[in-house]
């Protein structure tokens, strides 16, 4: 059997998180709404109405293009793509055919093995979404709530080489989209949709062979699986003397099987022409510069900076830059804490993370602000409270909104700072455990931990462990 490599290009449709649709003022997000309640004459294709472009869709589209290092076109145009389908009420889709908002660009993928794979972008363009249909007893029912939602279609060059790479692309793209705030990118809600173009060739060849298109892959796992299946299918086909035919394939997530939808040879003639109801989309140099200036530090760059500036491990840096709110929180907490970044990262990756999971909150939703977290950490580091108290404070501050120092004061959680008081408690414990004192003095040094535990119990957790050990050692070794 020959050595084959698979060549994959991905087409993603990204639903922008604007307030309103791209060509009318209906809501962009109507996931919860009853069918056909979020419609108007424009998005339901009535006669006589006209599209009016949403400027925020342009800004977000340009921002995404900039994030992809693409060239943002100062003048782009809309075109009509004409075809008949029930979810397309005008009988044409307004899209950008030959002068899109973004051309070229690339997306660097950070692969798990540490390698960076660069995926080139062919183009990004704005277009309107279609409605939704469903089958019900032989009738096709149509809902236009989603019709007209702004989409960016992004097409890569055929640079991906495995289902795993495709999965990484989608994962990191999703992270980026949320990071720069242009899309919620939730694949389950259709905010991010993906079609994969797959072909195979002998390794070393530069030729691009006939490709098939896989549609209806609704999750990152499905994309990975479907590509793996299709690669296998094509290889088997070619090995047995067959030829790959340019089909559109549908992925059934339930059965894990691909089925032929239609032959791409009979492709529709869309008769693209400039949309006469819209004027060209013009972005001045100032506007483009201002949009680019809005680009935040992107995840990969921030991750590298966290590793370099804060000395975080690769793993820690990755977790803390997985979501923009979380990484902003981390930086604010470090700045507020003023000490070792690693201390903060430990707290965030363990106890804070647990808290966020328990409450189902993201970092930016916490009542426990970075400054408040920093206060807790500082109190522990300075020995004012012990670690266990500190951890319990996280929840207490989150629930009450009160400052940690206030809670410590009110509930008397401070570490017993008074050496005499502590000494007295320790002496009491020793006095109550003569047998263990004997054993310790006889050489069983491991009992020190047990003594510390006893002291902790006796003081309700408020003894400072370090001080306790010092005093214990002093008294036991007399």
């Amino acid at each position, binding site marked *: 059997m020959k050595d084959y490599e698979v060549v994959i290009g991905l087409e993603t449709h990204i639903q922008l998180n604007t307030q309103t649709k791209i060509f009318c003022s209906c809501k962009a997000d109507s996931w919860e709404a009853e069918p056909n309640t*979020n419609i108007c004459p424009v998005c339901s294709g009535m006669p006589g109405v006209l599209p009016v472009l949403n400027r925020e869709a342009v800004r977000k589209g340009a921002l995404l293009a900039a994030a992809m290092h693409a060239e943002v076109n100062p003048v782009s145009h809309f075109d009509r793509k004409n075809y008949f389908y029930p979810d397309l009420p005008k009988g044409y889709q307004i899209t950008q055919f030959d002068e899109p908002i973004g051309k070229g660009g690339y997306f660097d993928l950070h692969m798990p093995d540490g390698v960076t794979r660069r995926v080139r972008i062919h183009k990004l363009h704005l277009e309107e979404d279609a409605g939704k249909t469903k089958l019900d007893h032989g009738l096709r029912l149509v809902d236009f709530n989603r019709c007209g939602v702004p989409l960016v279609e992004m097409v890569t060059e055929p640079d991906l080489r495995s289902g795993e790479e495709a999965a990484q692309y989608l994962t990191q793209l999703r992270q980026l989209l949320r990071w720069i705030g242009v899309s919620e990118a939730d694949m389950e809600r259709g905010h991010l949709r993906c079609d994969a173009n797959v072909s195979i060739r002998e390794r070393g060849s530069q030729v691009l062979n006939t490709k098939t298109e896989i549609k209806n892959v609704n999750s990152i796992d499905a994309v990975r699986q479907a590509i793996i299946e299709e690669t296998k299918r094509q290889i088997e086909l070619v090995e047995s003397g067959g030829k790959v035919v340019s089909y559109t394939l549908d992925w059934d997530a339930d059965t894990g099987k691909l089925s032929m939808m239609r032959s791409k040879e009979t492709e529709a003639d869309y008769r693209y022409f400039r949309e006469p109801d819209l004027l060209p989309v013009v972005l001045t140099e100032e506007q483009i510069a201002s949009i680019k200036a809005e680009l935040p530090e992107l995840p990969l760059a921030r991750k590298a900076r966290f590793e370099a500036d804060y000395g975080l491990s690769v793993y820690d840096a990755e977790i803390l830059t997985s979501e923009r709110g979380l990484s902003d929180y981390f930086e604010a907490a470090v700045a507020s804490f003023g000490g070792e970044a690693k201390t903060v990262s430990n707290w965030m990756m363990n106890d804070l993370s647990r808290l966020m999971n328990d409450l189902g909150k993201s970092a930016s939703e916490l009542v426990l602000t970075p400054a408040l977290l920093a206060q807790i950490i500082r109190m522990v580091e300075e020995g004012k409270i012990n670690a266990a108290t500190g951890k319990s404070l996280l929840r207490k501050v989150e629930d009450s909104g009160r400052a940690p120092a206030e809670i410590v004061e009110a509930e008397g959680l401070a570490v017993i700072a008074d050496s005499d008081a502590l000494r007295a408690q320790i002496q009491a414990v020793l006095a109550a455990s003569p047998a263990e004192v004997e054993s310790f003095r006889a050489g069983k040094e491991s009992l020190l931990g047990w003594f510390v535990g006893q002291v902790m119990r006796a003081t309700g957790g408020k003894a400072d462990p370090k001080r306790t050990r010092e005093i214990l050692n002093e008294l036991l070794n007399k």
Partner: protein
Amino acid sequence: MSISKISPELFHKLVGLAALELISAEGAYLLTEMNHQLSSVNALLQVPLEDDIQPTLHGIECQGAGPRTDVWQPFPTPSEILAGAPETEDGMFAVPDVKGAK
């Protein structure tokens, strides 16, 4: 000089593309008229284009108001839109299924 004409085969294809159906007498009339119109359109193919001429979409340079702000303005009566449909079910537009659909 001969001008291009639309053949009956191409005509048939266009009818499909246009989602139309024609009875033969109407079809014959339409095809004849189309080819007559093409003889007029033919002049376009002959006219020498001026060197620097760019296609124009509207003739004049349109100065429109530009894109609108992203503010939700619900249409007051979406039910009126649905009410005009030939057939609905459960608040959705109802049609027979697409041939050959999944």
